[in-house]
């Protein structure tokens, strides 16, 4: 099959891939016609609402729902007792593995409430007002327990313990006392201790970050129906309808084929919608009530009860020779997992040093549970946090060595043939090219004014491939439908249609891309892991190639020539037999005659794509600080990234710009703030401060194309890399502007003013 790029060189240059057509779902999205999770209504539906724990940690002694059930208009009430026990089982979600029992207990609490916002009961009623009243009539008795939020406090021996059966894994001896430390991972090579001793220059730093939320503007929403015969329908906005189906089946003890999940349009996910919160509740309520149940989260619930990413402590030590060669590194990462095991510390450990070729290093990662919402994936999970520490340390190292920050990175950059810190040997990577693109940008050589500083940072993400199914059907008039199982978060319908059209040789407007429900297309993993253009795109191209082969066969049949005498070019079959000279047969011609040549023209491809190309980003950020107020203005931002091949350049730029914006918010203003009782104080967009339009300048995206030969058009995943560098890029810019190394995110004005006041001289 076609996993080599050179076919594009042999044939005509690309006509559609690499251009910027309007997305096929565009009209629906700009007119309000597109239907998101909360936009669908089923006849007879009820309103579902959730009762949530007001305590950060508590034993649920009893729940009395009698008064709620008796309220007129209430049709169903569920608690944890209405859900089956789920065995502990790991499930690969594509970004990270989930423990299904933990997921089930996060959907609705059993013996304990583990964070403020943890679901403990749910109701379905004929109106929102009655549902609210029903919640107030449910009486829950808690034994309030001491709670712990901070990751190091949770690791301390005297910390309140969340799970009595948690005994830290990954150490030399297994402890006999339960703790909040899920596991320790450790990786390394060489002899760091000796290398540090021999180093000319050593830098060290301790960095801290707070929990931050993906911040999608669309709250979670679904409508679910459990019919009398056990057949279930779910409409929900998620990053994967098959993921929703799997998790609902596991949580409720159903067969997957009895649930059909139809994906709504999704209003942002960034990893946060690769799990379920409402759908199993809605199904359980619907089963009891005998009616569909619609559930929509409030913004408050989104913050309090859906996964942010970890807050963390990062310790970095680097040792280098005077010429800038980094000879030793030690990184320690302590990550909040939230209420249940599974922070992204593993991925953070693997990516922490991935950009650099360092002979001797140790990376230690701690996964630690805390009385905060169970963390969920957030765009390159874990990597931005590790990169924050490492890239700030590299910046300090460059200063100490008197080296240009890009030159130092170039000196130590991984290149083809180098064994990555996390194992595989790099091939076809473009890190050096990306560093050069940043170095050569106009931005990098522009002068700076007073109170201004410039920061550089690099970042890495693996990107994944994974399982996708695609079906491609040719209509009787030659128009084409390509069907996938991946929700369109950022314009992937356009990209799929482009790749299909390019392969078929037809204009893009002859190809319609659809996203199908779980009963109408084969299995696909989530839209996440930067995998859709790579893996689903690969399946699209393979399906189109199968159709092309079929079309050629049919043309050969029609012309009565040998199969190898037919070529497919620009959407038509050309006869190569010199004894015959028929007109070319277009896709439409062949389709119109399909019944005579074998029946409907269709192809399906299911694959598990391998060879996703990792991505590298190098960012340059200029800030200006108001020294009296500590206010930071981002003046200019340039993000260079190795994208492999930009199938639709505007959407690739969009991924880069969006990731940068999230990273800037993470660096400057976003954080979960808890009060002394462990309740989130800023569970709204007023005080959870994401960047607004006036906070940012234009973001220059430089797309470096070093092709990934494993993808038919050379694409690499692009969506996650851009959030990895900005935390350090901003922090390094602040360092440049104020001469002080700030190590605690977010870099809010009071902290900067305090740092300036504390500065000697």
């Amino acid at each position, binding site marked *: 099959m076609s996993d080599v790029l050179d076919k594009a060189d042999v044939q005509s240059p690309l006509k559609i891939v690499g251009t910027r057509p309007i997305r096929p779902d565009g009209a629906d999205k700009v007119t309000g016609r597109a239907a998101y999770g909360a936009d669908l209504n089923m006849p007879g539906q009820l309103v579902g609402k959730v009762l949530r724990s007001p305590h950060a940690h508590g034993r649920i002694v009893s729940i009395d729902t009698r008064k709620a059930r008796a309220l007129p208009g209430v049709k169903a009430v569920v608690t944890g007792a209405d859900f089956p026990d789920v065995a502990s089982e790991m499930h690969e979600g594509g970004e990270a593995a989930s423990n299904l029992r933990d997921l089930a207990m996060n959907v609705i609490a059993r013996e304990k409430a583990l964070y403020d916002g943890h679901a403990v009961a749910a109701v379905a009623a004929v109106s929102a007002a009655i549902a609210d009243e029903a919640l107030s009539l449910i009486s829950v008795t808690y034994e309030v327990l001491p709670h712990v939020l901070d990751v190091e406090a949770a690791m301390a021996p005297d910390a309140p313990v969340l799970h009595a059966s948690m005994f830290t894994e990954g150490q030399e001896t297994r402890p006999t006392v339960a703790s909040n430390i899920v596991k320790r991972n450790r990786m390394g090579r060489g002899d760091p201790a000796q290398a540090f001793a021999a180093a000319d220059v050593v830098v060290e730093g301790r960095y801290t970050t707070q929990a931050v939320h993906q911040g999608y503007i669309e709250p979670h929403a679904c409508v679910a129906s459990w019919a009398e015969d056990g057949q279930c329908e779910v409409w929900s906005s998620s990053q994967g309808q098959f993921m929703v189906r799997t998790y609902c089946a596991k949580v409720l003890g159903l067969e997957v084929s009895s649930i059909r999940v139809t994906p709504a349009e999704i209003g942002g996910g960034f990893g946060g919608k690769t799990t379920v919160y409402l759908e199993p509740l809605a199904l359980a309520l619907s089963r009891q009530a005998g009616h569909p149940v619609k559930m929509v989260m409030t913004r408050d619930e989104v913050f309090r009860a859906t996964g942010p990413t970890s807050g963390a402590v990062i310790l970095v030590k680097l040792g280098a020779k005077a010429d800038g060669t980094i000879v030793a590194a030690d990184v320690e990462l302590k990550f909040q997992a939230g209420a249940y095991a599974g922070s992204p510390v593993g991925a953070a450990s693997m990516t922490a040093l991935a950009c650099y070729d360092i002979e001797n290093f140790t990376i230690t990662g701690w996964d630690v549970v805390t009385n905060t919402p169970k963390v969920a994936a957030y765009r390159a999970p874990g990597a931005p946090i590790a990169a924050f520490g490492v890239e700030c340390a590299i910046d300090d190292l460059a200063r100490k060595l008197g080296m240009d920050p890009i030159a130092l990175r170039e000196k130590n950059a991984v290149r083809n043939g180098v064994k990555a810190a996390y194992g595989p040997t790099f091939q076809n990577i473009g890190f050096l090219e990306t560093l050069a693109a940043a170095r050569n940008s106009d931005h990098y050589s522009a002068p700076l004014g007073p109170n201004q500083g410039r920061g550089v940072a690099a970042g890495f993400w693996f990107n994944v491939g994974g399982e996708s199914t695609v079906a491609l059907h040719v209509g009787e008039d030659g128009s084409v439908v390509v069907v996938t199982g991946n929700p369109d978060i950022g314009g992937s319908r356009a990209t799929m249609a482009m790749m299909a059209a390019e392969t078929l040789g037809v204009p893009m407007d002859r190809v319609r891309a659809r996203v199908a429900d779980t009963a109408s297309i084969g299995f696909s993993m989530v839209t996440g892991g930067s995998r859709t253009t790579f893996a689903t795109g690969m399946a699209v191209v393979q399906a189109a190639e199968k159709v092309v082969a079929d079309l050629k066969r049919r043309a050969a049949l029609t012309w009565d020539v040998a199969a190898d005498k037919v070529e497919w070019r620009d959407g038509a079959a050309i006869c190569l037999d010199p004894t015959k000279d028929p007109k070319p047969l277009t896709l439409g011609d062949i389709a119109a005659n399909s019944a005579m040549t074998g029946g409907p023209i269709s192809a399906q491809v299911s694959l598990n794509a391998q060879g996703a190309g990792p991505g590298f980003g190098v960012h340059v950020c200029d800030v200006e600080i108001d020294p*009296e*107020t*500590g*206010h930071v*203005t981002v003046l200019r931002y340039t993000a260079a990234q190795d994208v492999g091949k930009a199938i639709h350049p505007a959407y690739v730029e969009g991924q880069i710009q969006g990731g940068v914006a999230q990273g800037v918010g993470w660096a*400057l*203003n976003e954080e979960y*703030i808890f009060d002394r009782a462990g309740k989130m*104080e*800023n569970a709204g967009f*007023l*005080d959870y*401060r994401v*960047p*607004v339009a*006036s*906070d940012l300048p234009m973001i220059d995206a430089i797309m470096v194309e070093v092709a990934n030969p494993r993808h038919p058009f050379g694409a690499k995943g692009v969506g996650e890399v851009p959030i990895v560098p900005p935390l350090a890029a901003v922090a390094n810019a602040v360092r440049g502007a104020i001469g002080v190394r700030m190590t605690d995110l977010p870099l*809010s*004005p*009071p902290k900067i*003013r*305090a740092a300036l006041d504390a500065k000697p001289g």
Partner: protein
Amino acid sequence: MKALAAAGARPMAGGTDLLVQLRSGRAQPEAIVDLKRVAGAVGVREIAGGFVIGAATSGAVIGEHAALSKAWPGVVEAANLIGSTQVQGRASLAGNLCNASPAADSVPAMIAARAVCVIVGPKGRREVPVESIATGPGRTSLAPGEFVLEIRLPPRSARSSDAYLRLIPRTEMDIAVVGAGVNLTLDAAGVVTQAHVALGAVAPTALLVPEAGAALVGSKLDEASLARLDAAARAACKPISDKRGTAEYRTKIAGVLARRAALIAYQRAGGHA
């Protein structure tokens, strides 16, 4: 009036605070009386050299009033800082005032302007200085059944102007961490003859700081008088530390913003510092 006198009734102007409180459950009124339908509550009028601003007039309408913007640029810019463009389409000065958030943007500027509220209620009409309305966070001196009908700005002397500045972590959309309003009148030589300074978000209510104003009177905003202004502003602060800022930070910034607002007001009034 009768409707408002009923127990559990709340007046509503723009509704941009009330609706948020309805939704969160913080406010649970029995009835809501829409002041926008009351005669005189919407619109800006010039009378006898001063301005009368209807209580329910939106920030957007205020910002579009040329004469008001020219005479009171500080009051107008403060009003126009409340929330987003969308909020500006609804939010009112009286609502901002009566919601009694210590950080309300329009209040320091109105206090510095020496604005007066006309209050209407079951016992008739009364006028009070704007700074007497808020008595603590979320609490006002209004009696049951009373509402603010209009806000009056006094006639403007020549060579007078004002300015309002606030510190927020982003560039928009945040509640003020500190706000400072300064209102100045100069003589022909550019010497300050009257100065009023008010601070927001540094005490349970917005504060008029007479010592800060006094620091500027008789000066041309030289460094010594600005330093006295800065110190007086800081001395008046009784801030809290909360999720938006520490007490220490707020105090420092109060001084910084008072200085900067004073310089802007001075320039607008025709002075050359």
